[in-house]
């Protein structure tokens, strides 16, 4: 069951097309990665989910029915361009923003107390935001975003401004939220965290969706049939690959040899049986392409096509 669905969304600004017939579907209780280069249209799409802008055509659904104004209280949003009132005290400001999300002052206070204790930042309550470091302010901002326990949480580059320790805290928090039933839309350029966190993704480039699906399916779909083999060559006989197998690279690592072999039309068992008589195999695994590579490959493909079309 999907919590959110966008159908054939198109948005045109005066000079350019921001989204061109884009559809996405976000499963309930999943982490959905919204990927794309800068200026692809991700922020425009996110701003539609948060109802900051509206599409020119197409429909947005929340829990299977049309998205309505009151849904903003069930949605949490951490924008990429984010900040707080510098001259306002941390606690007072967090209370204000929570109340804008529909929490009562009393509820907001109880919840803030819980989070401030959890993150061990109770002493910041009376501080002005301008006295905090960037990372500290980001932490406050994160708390404010999730305080009203949104059903759908949208995080746009949530890790920017955090050191590795705090990045980890936030990562754990995101996973814990998912475990408790929150659905998360996650927009980032950091493909490492996409592989780590996301269940599904959609890749948007130049206003169009060019790829979507579950992360594992996409990665296996983009497999190149390359296997990585580490072995010990005690007899010194070396590898003798039968025809149809390509040796792509050889590396020495701590006495072991590590090779990458493209197996073409053959299967992995054929490769294994060719190797077993000659060397001692230490490890044998299929190379699954990184999201990063798929991202670059897809975007470049599309841009090249565009250029061809223009030429």
């Amino acid at each position, binding site marked *: 069951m999907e919590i959110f669905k966008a159908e054939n969304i198109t948005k045109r*600004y*005066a000079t350019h097309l921001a989204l061109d017939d884009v559809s996405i579907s976000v499963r309930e209780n999943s982490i959905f990665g919204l990927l794309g280069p800068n200026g692809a249209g991700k922020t425009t799409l996110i*701003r539609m989910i*948060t*109802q*900051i802008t509206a599409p020119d055509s197409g429909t947005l659904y929340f829990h299977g029915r049309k998205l309505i104004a009151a849904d*903003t*209280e069930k*949605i949490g*949003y*951490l*924008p990429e*361009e*984010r*900040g*707080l*009132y*510098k*001259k*306002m005290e941390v606690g007072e400001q967090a209370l*204000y*923003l929570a*109340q*804008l*999300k*529909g929490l009562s002052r009393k509820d907001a206070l109880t919840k803030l107390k819980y989070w401030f204790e959890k993150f061990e930042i109770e002493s910041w309550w009376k501080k002005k935001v301008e006295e905090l470091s960037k990372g500290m302010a980001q932490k406050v*901002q994160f708390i*404010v*975003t999730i305080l009203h326990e949104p059903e759908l949480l949208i995080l746009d580059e949530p890790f920017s401004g955090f050191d590795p320790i705090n990045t980890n805290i936030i990562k754990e928090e995101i996973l814990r939220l998912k475990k408790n039933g929150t659905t998360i839309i996650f927009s980032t350029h950091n493909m490492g965290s996409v592989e780590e966190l996301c269940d599904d993704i959609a890749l948007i480039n130049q206003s169009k969706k060019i790829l979507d699906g579950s992360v594992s399916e996409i990665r296996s779909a983009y497999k190149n049939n390359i296997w990585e083999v580490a072995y010990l060559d005690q007899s010194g006989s070396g590898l003798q690959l039968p025809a149809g197998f390509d040796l792509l690279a050889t590396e020495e690592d701590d006495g072991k040899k590590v090779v990458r072999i493209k197996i073409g039309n053959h299967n992995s068992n054929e490769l294994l049986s060719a190797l077993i008589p000659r060397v001692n195999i230490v490890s044998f695994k299929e190379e699954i392409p990184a999201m990063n590579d798929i991202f670059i490959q897809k975007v470049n493909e599309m841009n090249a096509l565009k250029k061809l079309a223009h030429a």
Partner: protein
Amino acid sequence: MHKIVLIIKREYLTRVKQKSFIIMTILGPLLMGALFVVPIWMATQEDEKTDVLVVDESLLFNNSFSDKDNLKFHFVKDMNIKEAEKQLDEDYYSAVLYIPQNIINSNGAEIIYKKQPGFNTIMFIETSIENELESLKLSEAGIDKKTLAAAKTDIKMRKSKYESGVKESKNTELSMVVGMLGGVLIYFFIFLYGAQVMRGVIEEKSNRIVEVIISSVKPFQLMMGKIIGIAMVGLTQFLLWIFLTTTIVSAAKGFLGVEKNSLPAPVPMEQTMNGQPALQPNMQAQQPAAEDMDEIWKSIDKINFPLLIGAFIFYFIGGYLLYGALFAAVGAAVDNEADTQQFMLPITIPLILSFVMAQFVMNNPEGPMAFWFSIIPFTSPIIMMVRLPFGIPYPYTDLWISMSLLIIGFIATTWFAGKIYRTGILMYGKKVNYKELWKWIRYH
């Protein structure tokens, strides 16, 4: 609706709690109080003891100047001006008045001082000489003073307005003062707090908090919340100023022991003549003055205060809302305050124009210029306030048109500003021009 109240509350409280608000609230009345108190204080300080040595070479005056409070004249004979000047070194005399022999023809005298005497003192001495010479000349010409005084004529014109069988007397001077005061206050309020709206919007934009907030509320709610919140700050400040100013002024008056009639007033010249008791014409001259005061009180009573105060509040709020929305739009269109210049011009021009027009409107409060400028929403808040004390013909048609247009006007500017605002607040690092703004208005 609940959320807009939250926004208003935040806008109001953060500003009212600011040090600058508290300082301005205290400093404002002190400055205003000083404006009233300092001249009075200065005037009381002027009366330090002044002894004037009079060297009268014309021999016309002969002890005829009467002393006043701390001002004493000492006539000397057998002392030339050089010797008299030397007397100043003794520190007893503060000034030497030199009256040359041919004063009756030259009309010139000289005062030599160590420390400059006050304006009033100089005036007093001059008047003393003038009066003395005038009566001399009069008696030489054989004209009796009483005859002259009786011949002097001063016409007081009463102004009355006739309308459908009812005659109503007017005091245009008072209307001018009241009108100008209302106009200035509105002008001041719009500029001061309109600029605060603009700065608030720029702050939210440059802090990057705006997108966080408009994911919870509509941009329009945020804009209106800010405008209304700041209006309430303005009203609070004005009320506090009025209260504190009145307190300070009355306290200072009490402290300095200043009473109405000891304020620096023109010296009644007849009384000073030869120290004679006041003459008959003088008494007559004072009579109309008292009547004047009476007249002023009567006209003050005649001013329709409920109408004036009601209209003031209406134009105060209406004018601010009209311009406040435009200030918000300017704030949304730029990234920092330095870039506001180009968009401020269309806002400041009608305001300054109203101010210039106010003088022409006062000259002809029922002319076409007064009518049109008090109808057009951009100028009506100031011009109508200037016009109102002169009276609006019953049944106040002009006023109703003007008020309705102002309401339509601020709804229009708010709608218009809202369009610019909701696009502008999410636009960073882009130099915006009028063409770009026009595009934003046309987005849907």
